[in-house]
């Protein structure tokens, strides 16, 4: 069973709405190549992780399908002390990993997993609002992938030619620009007179994601960067968007502020675990599974957590530090094989697991909502995925 089926997220409806964004644009009648390109991107699939996060976030509204009044119960919630989740990563780096950050984390409640259902039947308006938010988030994500592929010089995505290799670079840049503008236009046309804050937050997100990418550019081939810098970059590149998707769903469902704050922490920790797993897979999976060359992060000078861990081993560090944009494919392959054969990936996995535990503990704070089980399913699926 696929993840969205297990979580009862209506991905087919979300995909259909995504197609409608372009198909209903009255300004696009003279540009079939643009609509065909975007429909091609939508139909090429993808995890639809951001829409899933939005829809699950929407299950934490003030009144869920069981009639739970979140605000009232929230008042009775004991709460927990704040956590500096970066401490989880840096604790490993400074040798205090055994209890890194854990003592500051509120205790999780023991719950068994199990899906809780979509629960939208009683509120079709909420479902429509969540789908619109999910579509907006996925469009921003898809557009950013088009630009990322150009920045990384990636010729393929999911095993297929990336957009810029088909349309040319300038056109691909503009198609992605069009996608962001059209998604916002479509969103606002449906929400006229309503709060426009999701679009504002999306804009702030776009700027924040860019700052993460500027950092990555600035630190390309910088083998002296430290764990804190890596964690900050990872948060801005990945975790902020995942946290924003969860909270956007919760806000659309009128969740109370404390629940939204907790969901943000869940999304942040989940996003960090997700990205670290992505970093590990980039080195350990083969080209065919990845749909792009293995080790493409390292090949573009992006220093990920397993590479930072590998830099602790003098022999390996010397080989890694010798890499540059001019290094050959065989040089990269040899170094990647050596990193995979070292304990570096296991050490990175240990940091990932700390973020998983942190996310679990924050999810434990939401155990009064049946949908907390959906978060656990999602967390374990994402953080331990193999592709």
């Amino acid at each position, binding site marked *: 069973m696929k993840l969205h089926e297990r979580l009862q997220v209506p991905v087919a409806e979300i995909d259909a709405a995504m197609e409608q964004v372009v198909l209903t644009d009255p*300004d*696009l009648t*003279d*540009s079939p*190549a*643009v609509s065909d390109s975007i429909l091609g991107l939508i139909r090429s699939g993808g995890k639809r992780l951001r829409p899933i996060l939005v829809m699950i976030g929407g299950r934490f509204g003030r009144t869920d399908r069981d009639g739970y009044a979140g605000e009232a119960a929230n008042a009775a919630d004991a709460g927990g002390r704040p956590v500096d989740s970066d401490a989880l990563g840096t604790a490993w780096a400074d040798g205090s990993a055994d209890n890194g950050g854990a003592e500051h984390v509120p205790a999780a409640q023991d719950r068994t997993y199990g899906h809780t259902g979509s629960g939208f039947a009683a509120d079709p308006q909420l479902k429509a609002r969540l789908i619109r938010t999910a579509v907006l988030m996925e469009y921003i994500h898809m557009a*950013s992938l088009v*630009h990322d592929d*150009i*920045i990384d*010089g990636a010729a393929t995505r999911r095993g297929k030619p990336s957009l*810029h290799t088909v349309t*040319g*670079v*300038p*056109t691909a*840049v*503009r*198609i992605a*620009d*069009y996608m*962001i*503008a*059209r998604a*916002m*236009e479509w969103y*606002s046309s449906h929400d006229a007179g309503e709060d*426009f804050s999701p*679009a*504002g937050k*999306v*804009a*702030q*997100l*776009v*700027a*924040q*994601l*860019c*700052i993460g*990418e*500027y*950092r990555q*550019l*600035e630190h390309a081939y910088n083998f002296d960067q430290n764990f804190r810098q890596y964690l900050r970059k990872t948060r801005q590149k990945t975790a902020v968007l995942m946290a924003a998707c969860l909270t956007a769903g919760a806000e659309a469902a009128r969740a109370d502020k404390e629940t939204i704050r907790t969901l943000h922490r869940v999304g942040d920790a989940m996003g960090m675990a997700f990205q670290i797993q992505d970093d590990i897979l980039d080195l350990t999976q083969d080209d065919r599974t990845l749909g792009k060359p293995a080790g493409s992060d390292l090949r573009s000078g992006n220093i990920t957590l397993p590479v930072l861990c590998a830099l602790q081993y003098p022999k390996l560090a010397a080989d890694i530090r010798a890499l540059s944009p001019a290094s050959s494919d065989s040089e990269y392959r040899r170094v990647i094989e050596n990193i995979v054969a070292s304990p570096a990936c296991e050490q990175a996995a240990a940091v990932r697991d700390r973020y998983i535990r942190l996310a679990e503990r924050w999810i434990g704070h939401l155990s009064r909502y049946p949908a907390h089980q959906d978060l656990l399913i999602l967390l374990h699926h994402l953080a331990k995925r193999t592709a």
Partner: protein
Amino acid sequence: MKNRLIHDAQLLLEHYIDPQTDIRLNGESLPLEEMASLLQSCKIPYVRKAVVMGCYCLLCLAIMRHREVTERTYAAKDGCARRILDGDYLLGIFVTFALEMKETRLMTHLNSLYKKIQLRLIQGASTEHAMMELPVQIIDYLRSEQPAHTGGNTDEAA
């Protein structure tokens, strides 16, 4: 007066641009004078003129930055990544700035105009041609607004 409006708009925006981006608004040669001239004759408060000018400035610069992404800069890896990021960042700041200045309707209108410019560029129009009507379209929009959204020509109050 035109230069003062441009200068004031850029001052307003300075607080929004993260120094890490290295984007300097006053170091750019942007086609801002026509917009400034048209805004001068518009009967809206001076502060709002500066906000509109700021939005226009951000959109212009976002479009210009992405125009510089060509097959040549891509192949030569000649600052291509930074230009893409600059354009994306500036678009994000445009929306953030407009919403913070309580210009939601203006932002949605400008966003639609920006979208149409992208379509013209995809169809092969030059940047200058694709953006030619933008200043007049903005002024038309300001004039078409409900009276509640406008004010007198209060340049004196600035």
